[in-house]
């Protein structure tokens, strides 16, 4: 490996940006636009999908069959994105997503992966000590509920469709979406009604 790669990262970025724009590989405008577009993808997108699945059984079925198509139905841009799989929680089984090899994350519907998802501790422990891991997020999974850990190693991105919390009967989709957080869609927490 070339020693030049040891250069401090901010200087590497400045030099790479300079060279790629000088050579017409990318433009500064494209970089700016891409940052804007990426910032626009947030957990609110996934939360809208979850809320709709809670109130609309036909949408729920379509979402479980093909998450990307269901996202597009709600106007979430999925072009060029990897396939999106949806893991359905039931009263008997809870899903937890990890990528032990890197940090594969359903970015189209959840945005940038959070710091903890990329950490060595999360990646190592999710597959071997998942209940201990959940406790660090304040989540106590009842022993009767089976825990199914999905290691996202390849071409799919996975999100969890959590159980609808009690006490939300009659709520609108907007109200429901507001209680769904990013961790609920990875499986480290459950949606809570305060």
């Amino acid at each position, binding site marked *: *490996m*070339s020693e*030049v*790669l*040891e*250069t401090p*990262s*901010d*200087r*590497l*970025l*400045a*030099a*790479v*940006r*300079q*060279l*790629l724009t000088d*050579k017409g*590989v*990318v433009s500064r405008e*494209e*970089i700016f636009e*891409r*940052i804007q577009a*990426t*910032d626009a993808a947030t957990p609110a997108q996934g939360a809208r999908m979850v809320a709709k699945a809670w109130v609309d059984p036909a949408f729920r079925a379509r979402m479980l069959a093909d998450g990307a198509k269901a996202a597009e139905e709600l106007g979430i841009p999925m072009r*060029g994105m990897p396939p999106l799989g949806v893991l359905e929680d039931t009263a008997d089984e809870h899903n937890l997503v*990890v990528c*032990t*090899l*890197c*940090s594969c994350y359903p970015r189209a519907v959840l945005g*940038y992966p*959070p*710091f*903890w998802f*990329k*950490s*060595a*501790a*999360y*990646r*190592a*422990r*999710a*597959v*071997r*000590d998942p209940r201990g*891991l959940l406790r*660090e*997020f304040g989540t106590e999974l009842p022993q009767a509920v089976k825990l199914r850990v999905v*290691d996202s190693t390849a071409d799919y991105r996975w999100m969890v469709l959590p159980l609808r919390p009690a006490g939300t009967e009659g709520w609108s989709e907007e109200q429901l979406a507001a209680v769904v957080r990013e961790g609920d869609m990875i499986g480290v927490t459950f949606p809570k009604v305060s």
Partner: protein
Amino acid sequence: MHDMGGVSKFMCDAVDVEPHALSAFDREVDAIRQLLGAKKVMSVDELRRGIEAIPEPDYLRLSYYQRWIRSITDNMLAKGVFTEAELLAALEDTK
């Protein structure tokens, strides 16, 4: 190194569950990676291979996006998108 599932030395590490805001550096590296992928200059698989080639002490010392810019640079050099001489000259300009 990158293949961390169940690795014993991390099993006692607590997970830092606090939010960490991304920096301007992080966002720009992410955007450049996406553009290089969309333009078929470098695939995400090539990015990963470049990250996996980082020696362990550096891998653990570098932040997530610091690994990315290092892999991107490595890939651009290997593909001849720019040469090491051009990179060294551009780095001089950043001093």
